């Protein structure tokens, strides 16, 4: 055994002549089995060495206590990272879904522990696993690509089938001959000295540094571009890498196309279509007439009388509507001759009345005035400004308006009259009738006498100031 040691020593000296020899880094002893290295480590430990280590191809159990290795702090890394993962996951989910962009999904709460738990669990595992492996690498002071031990050909078998004890030159008791003696007593199969690495030998290969520099500079390009774009607002359209659905082959409104004979992109409804919920069969409710405009037209055709777009037949054509002849105001309005309803087609209740009052104040009062005198705020303002085009609304209390059948008033509200636009598109049909009901009440209020007042309210009238 000692003979082989001597040979090794000799070879070492041949390799490194004493004159050029740099400082000693460590001495290593080789052992063939786990059992022999364990026995040797026991001796080294008992001899009181402190800066030494055992290298083996697999973990040899029982070494840790000899080397006085304190239990690693690694589990604390794992625990901390796991807890951070949970907290980050919960805060992230709460902030993103309940604070920054709360959106309603099937009536679920914006944040709930139950729904957030799976992701919190996964992030706990992810953080803990990264911390565990990262912590193991860092605590082992890896990566370390240059190590004086690697200079020894023999030591390369530490990852295959040999076991080594390494005593560092940094140990306060270190002395070449003493270590040599100790290793020989432990019956090491080989003993070698390791020299401290020459600073130049520990360098990367020459290509690595430029590659890292170039890669590092290139990696800065995308963030720099993003920062440049973010700091320079532009009014140009957004840059599209993939145009997606922003630009698609389609027809836009109001354009022309040769696809259709009429050249129009926007297609008219097919004849006779009625939108869902829009069918209007009840002429009394929807047109305010006893029978609909189709029937009126049919009767007109029978009588071979001219029909205007708005107008109806002459007064004589329909005997049924002549019960309420107008005062002599020439020429007679063709509308007056239509079969207007005189009764309300909706139920007349206090609730409808209140609804009508509310709608009247919203839609009508601004021009017509709260009492229907045609003196709303808009009207007054227009007259003040002497707007020549402004036509003052007729007072609802005028004789001709009072005498109009309610159906005709409904027609005016729906389709407009003179300069007044139609409100049929804005006010639902029931509300239009409710407004008319309130209108009738307003009209009645100027012509009422004591009999119209409920008896229990008469005493309170006495208190009103006399006009």
């Amino acid at each position: 055994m000692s003979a082989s040691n001597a040979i090794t020593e000799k070879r070492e000296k041949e390799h490194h002549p004493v004159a050029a020899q740099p400082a000693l880094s460590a001495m290593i002893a080789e052992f063939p089995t786990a059992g022999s290295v364990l026995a040797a480590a026991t001796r080294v430990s008992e001899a009181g060495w402190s800066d030494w280590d055992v290298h083996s191809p697999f973990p040899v159990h029982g070494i840790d206590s000899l080397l006085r290795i304190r239990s690693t702090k690694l589990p604390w890394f794992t625990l901390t990272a796991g807890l951070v993962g949970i907290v980050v996951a919960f805060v992230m989910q709460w902030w993103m879904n309940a604070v920054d962009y709360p959106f309603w999904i099937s009536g679920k709460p914006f944040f709930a522990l139950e729904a957030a738990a799976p992701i919190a669990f996964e992030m706990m595992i992810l953080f803990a696993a990264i911390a565990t492996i990262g912590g193991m690498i860092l605590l082992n002071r890896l990566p370390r690509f240059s190590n004086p031990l690697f200079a020894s050909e023999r030591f390369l078998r530490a990852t295959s089938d040999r076991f080594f004890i390494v005593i560092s030159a940094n140990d306060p008791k270190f002395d070449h001959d003493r270590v040599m003696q100790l290793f020989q007593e432990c019956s090491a199969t080989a003993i070698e000295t390791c020299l401290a690495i020459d600073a130049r030998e520990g360098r990367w290969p020459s290509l690595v540094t430029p590659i890292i520099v170039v890669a590092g500079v290139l990696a800065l390009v995308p963030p720099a571009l993003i920062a440049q774009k973010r700091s320079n607002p532009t009014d140009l359209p957004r840059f599209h890498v993939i145009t997606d659905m922003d630009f698609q082959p389609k027809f836009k409104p109001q354009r022309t196309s040769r696809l259709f004979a009429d050249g129009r992109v926007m297609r008219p409804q097919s004849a006779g279509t009625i939108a869902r919920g829009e069918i209007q069969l009840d002429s009394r409710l929807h047109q305010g007439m006893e029978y609909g405009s189709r029937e009126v037209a049919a009767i007109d055709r029978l009588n071979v009388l001219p029909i205007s777009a708005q107008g109806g037949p002459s007064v004589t054509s329909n005997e049924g509507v002549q019960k309420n002849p107008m005062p002599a105001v020439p020429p007679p309005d063709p509308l007056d001759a239509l079969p207007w309803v005189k009764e309300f087609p909706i139920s007349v209740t206090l609730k409808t009345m209140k609804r009508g009052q509310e709608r009247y104040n919203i839609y009508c009062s601004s021009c017509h005035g709260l009492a229907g005198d045609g003196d709303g705020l808009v009207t007054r303002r227009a007259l003040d400004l002497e707007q020549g085009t402004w036509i003052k609304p007729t007072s609802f209390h005028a004789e001709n308006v009072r005498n109009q059948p309610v159906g005709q008033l409904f027609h005016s509200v729906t389709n407009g009259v003179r300069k007044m636009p139609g409100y049929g598109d804005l006010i639902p049909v029931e509300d239009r009738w409710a407004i008319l009901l309130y209108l009738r009440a307003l009209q009645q209020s100027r012509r009422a006498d004591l009999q119209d007042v409920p008896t229990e309210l008469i005493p309170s009238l006495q208190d009103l100031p006399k006009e």
Partner: protein
Amino acid sequence: MSALINDLMNNTHEVPGKRASLVLGGLNNSSITDRVCEIAEAPTPPRAWYIAFAVSSSLTLMLFGLVGYLIFTGVGVWGNNAPVFWAWDIVNFVFWVGIGHAGTLISAILFLFRQNWRTSINRFAEAMTIFAVICAGLFPTVHVGRIWVIYWLLPLPNQNAIWPNFRSPLLWDVFAVTTYATVSMLFWYMGMIPDFATFRDRAKTRNRQMIFGTLALGWTGSARQWHRYEKAYLLMAALATPLVISVHTVVSFDFAVSQVPGWHTTIFPPYFVAGAVFSGFAMVVTLMVPAREFFGLRELVTLRHLENMTKIILLTGTMVGYAYAMEFFTAWYSGNRYEQFAFMNRAFGPYAWAYWTMVTCNVISPQFFWFKKFRTTPWLMVIVCIFVNIGMWFERFVITVTSLSRDFLPSSWGYYQPTFVDIGMLIGSFGLFFTLFLLFCRYMPIVAISEVKSILPENQNPH
């Protein structure tokens, strides 16, 4: 003579009071290192490797071509239709994720249970996990259609100022699968650090020294390094064990949290996890049997290892069979007509052929492993395991497609048929899996060298 060799190579007999040897052929520290390293150091691999690689890489190219076709044309190239919005893409995803689970089970759960036989096969199975997760991730990735905005799945600030919906199981799935892929890869890499150091120290060429020197991070195998490494391994196993169970649980939530009859059941998480382990072990055996032949690993991956795996397949296969029966019981016991219809439709409806294929392959075929002959004859195992893999693919098909094709509105009921793109992508995903696997077998330490050494009798209890 051959009978004697067979006897020497058979370590499946139980000898009372004596642990069966897990490494045969008198291999020691030196020869284990040589045996594993020589596979990666050989100038040329076996001829069978070239043939297999030619086939699988061609299939991978076909897969990439089909993926490109799909991305440029749209997901309409698949057979997915109006009621069956999820079809082979999701079936393949669940199938591949499930395959991966065996790897983590072997590397983590069997480690916690101190099953020493895991050491010869864990590296192999972990690699399989990662390649299977890669194949799995491909399908939902292209399923999203507009793949260029797939980062919307992640909680990244984007120009729409919208965050993902964390109350959706599909997003849980994104987190579960990405976490699983990351942790599996880290675990795999950490396990390989000592073996990379072995490769580095045996390297003869400058390139191998550079590559494996970088990968090994300067590992020297010192007792202090091993101390932290072993603690890290234990912690990783303890983290990966609940992780692997959570991943397929979350995958099953994709179905179970919805309201579709046949999906909305609480049995899904345990049933999915059992199925995943079942299919994963079947895949490990399918790959392991040829690999140990071609790469001369029969002394390291012994018959006993294979037999242990077939026993797990038998157990999990029986659990899956129980789950199939229990689904019918639950449907009957619930008194819910729609649930009952969904299951009657599975067994006797338009997809009855798929259902009974599944039952035959998954419930009946593993029962052959009650016979020792089947547990100790490699080629018989492979046949059974291939049937199991077919059956497990059909299980996911049955779950996904039968329920969707008969959803709530009878007016929208339909029948799903795959297109050539569906079929090509399934075959191509096997090509990708085998390509990655063959590259791994050729260039990486396919057996955990340091771990196998630590279970040699001569290295245990050296006191």
